[in-house]
C-alpha cells in the first residue's frame, strides 16, 4: 500500500531504544502473570494469556511486512491455519513433537507464501490487499473441505504437542511460558531484521520503489523474502494457538481473523514491532473486559476504535508517546 504512507509524516524508522524498552516492560509483565494468577487463584488468566501471546506472535510477524514493507496482507490467517492444522494433521498420524510440527508448518507456509507472494507482489496498494485476501479465502475453503478433519466443524485435539517426548505442555503454565519464550525470541529476531541491511532496503522500497530500483535494488526479491519470513513466523503462532485451544478449525483461517490481525497491528502502531504486541494485548483484553461488562460490548469496542483513530493517529504507541512513556524524543 504505497500511498498509505504518503500522508504519514513520521520518520521511516525512529531510534529503537525506547521501543525495545517498552517491549521489555511488556515482557516483564507477561512473565509475572502466572504467579499473579496463581496467587489470586485464577488459573484461567494463564489460558487467556497464552492466546494473547500467540496472537502477539502473529501480529508481530504481520507488522514485519505491513509496517516495514507496506505489504498489507489480508490473508495472513492462512498461515495461522497452516500452523494449527500442522498440529492436527501430524498428531492424527501420531507425530506430536512440537519441533516437527513447527517445521512442517513453516515448510508449508514458506511454499504457500512463495507462490502466492510472487503472484500478489505484481500488484500494490489495495489491489495487494484484495489479492492476498483471495489467496487467504482459497486456503480457508481448502480447510473447510477437509472432511477428515471435521470440515468447517473443526477437529478436537486429543493431546497437546510434546517437547522431545515430554508432555510438559499439558501444563497450562508451561505452555504459557513456552509461548512467551518464543514470542521474545521472535521479537528479538524481527528487531534485528528491521535494523539490518535487509530491513533498511525493505523500508526503502516502501518509501520510494522507483528510487530504490534506480540505485540498483530489485524490489521483488526483497519483498518476497520478507513475505515468506512473515508467513513462516505467523505459522508458529498457529502451532501455539492449536495447543492453547486444543482444537483446530477453519475459524482460525477466516478473513475475520486476518482483519483482526491487521486491527491489532494498526491499533498498536504500525512499523514499531512493540506496537503489534501491544495491539494484540489491547484488542484481546478489551474483548475480554468489555465482554464481561456488557452484552453490547461490540458497540463500545467499535467506539473505542473510532476514537483511537480520530484522536491518536499513531495508535497505542502514540498514546504512550503523548504520555511521555515508551517512546523516545526526537
Amino acid at each position, binding site marked *: 500500500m504505497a500511498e498509505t504512507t504518503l500522508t504519514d509524516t513520521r520518520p521511516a524508522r525512529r531510534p529503537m531504544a525506547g521501543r525495545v524498552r517498552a517491549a521489555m516492560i511488556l515482557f516483564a509483565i507477561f512473565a509475572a502473570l502466572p504467579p499473579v494468577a496463581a496467587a489470586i487463584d485464577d488459573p484461567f488468566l494463564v489460558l487467556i494469556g497464552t492466546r494473547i501471546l500467540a496472537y502477539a506472535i502473529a501480529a508481530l510477524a504481520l507488522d514485519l511486512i505491513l509496517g516495514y514493507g507496506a505489504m498489507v496482507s489480508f490473508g495472513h490467517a492462512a498461515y495461522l491455519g497452516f500452523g494449527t492444522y500442522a498440529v492436527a494433521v501430524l498428531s492424527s498420524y501420531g507425530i506430536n513433537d512440537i519441533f516437527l510440527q513447527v517445521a512442517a508448518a513453516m515448510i508449508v507456509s514458506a511454499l504457500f507464501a512463495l507462490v502466492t507472494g510472487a503472484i500478489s507482489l505484481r500488484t500494490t496498494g489495495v489491489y495487494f490487499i484484495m489479492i492476498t485476501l483471495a489467496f487467504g479465502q482459497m486456503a480457508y475453503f481448502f480447510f473447510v473441505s477437509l472432511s477428515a478433519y471435521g470440515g468447517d466443524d473443526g477437529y478436537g485435539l486429543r493431546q497437546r504437542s510434546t517437547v522431545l517426548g515430554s508432555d510438559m505442555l499439558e501444563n497450562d503454565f508451561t505452555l504459557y511460558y513456552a509461548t512467551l519464550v518464543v514470542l521474545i525470541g521472535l521479537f528479538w529476531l524481527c528487531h*534485528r*531484521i528491521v*535494523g539490518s541491511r535487509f530491513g533498511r532496503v525493505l523500508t*526503502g522500497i516502501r*518509501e520510494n520503489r522507483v528510487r530504490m*530500483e*534506480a540505485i*540498483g535494488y530489485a524490489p521483488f526479491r526483497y519483498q518476497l523474502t520478507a513475505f515468506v519470513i512473515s508467513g513462516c513466523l505467523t505459522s508458529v503462532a498457529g502451532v501455539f494457538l492449536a495447543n492453547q485451544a486444543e482444537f483446530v478449525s477453519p475459524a482460525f483461517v477466516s478473513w475475520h481473523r486476518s482483519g483482526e490481525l491487521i486491527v491489532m497491528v494498526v491499533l498498536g502502531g504500525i512499523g514499531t514491532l512493540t506496537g503489534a504486541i501491544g495491539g494484540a494485548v489491547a484488542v484481546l483484553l478489551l474483548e475480554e473486559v468489555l465482554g464481561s461488562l456488557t452484552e453490547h460490548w461490540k458497540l463500545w469496542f467499535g467506539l473505542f476504535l473510532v476514537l483511537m483513530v480520530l484522536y491518536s493517529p499513531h495508535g497505542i504507541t502514540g498514546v504512550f508517546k503523548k504520555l511521555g512513556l515508551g517512546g523516545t524524543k526526537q
Partner: protein
Amino acid sequence: MSRLEIRHLQKAFGALKVTDDVSLIVEPGELHAIIGPNGAGKTTFIAQLSGQLPSDSGDILLDGQSLMARSMAERVHLGLARSFQITSILPRFTVLENVALAVQARMGSSFRFFAPVAEEAALNETAMTVLAEAGLEDRAEVMASALSHGEHRRLELAIALATEPQILLLDEPLAGVGGEDAEAFVARLKRLKGKITMVLIEHDMDAVFQLADRVSVLVYGKIIATGTPDAVRRDPKVREAYLGEEEEAA
C-alpha cells in the same frame, strides 16, 4: 569510464512516437548534453536508457554489451546511474540513510538479516564522504523531507553518485536551483567531468554551454543536430526549434 552506444531506439505511446529511431554514441569520459523543447522525449529517452521504461525496438550498448534485456537494478550494477527530473528520494529517511542505501547497493549483499546496518562504519563513512562533496554533511541527520528544494536537488545527485556509476544520466539536475547554488552545482559537475561519462538534460543554457563536450538536440523524438556547443548554438534549425532569440542576448 564507459562508452554508451544507442542504436535505432524507438518508443511510442499509442500513436505518439516519443523516441523515433534515435542513434547516438556517448564517448568515454564525455559530457554529452541533450537539449530540446518541452515534450521532445528527453525524459523518456533517459527512462529507456535506465531501464525504467521498456523500449519498443533498437539497442543500447554499454561498452559493447547490450542492456536491452537487463532490468533497471542490473543496469545500475553495470554502472549506469540516473537522477530524476522531479526529485525522487526517500523522504522519511535521513539524508545520510538515503546515501548509505545507495552505497550499500554497490557494496555487497543486502540479504543480511542480523547485523545492525546503522552501525556499519564502512557504509556510513563512504556516505559521509559523498555528502561532504555535495555540501550536505551538516544536514546528514536531517529527515530528507525537511530539505529545501535546492538541497533536494543536491541530495538527488549525491544518491546517484554514491552508486559510483560509470555513466551518469542527469535529468535536469539544475531545475529550480538558483544563484549561488546553481554555480556550485555546475562547478561540481565540472569536477566530475572526465571521471565519469555523463548524459545531461538541461534547459539552463548557461550550464549546458559551460559543461558540455558535445550537444545533441532532440526534437519530437528525432535528433536534429549533434555537435560542439558552439556549432549547435549557431545552427539555425536549433535556434528555431528551441533556443529562440533570447540566447543571442545572453
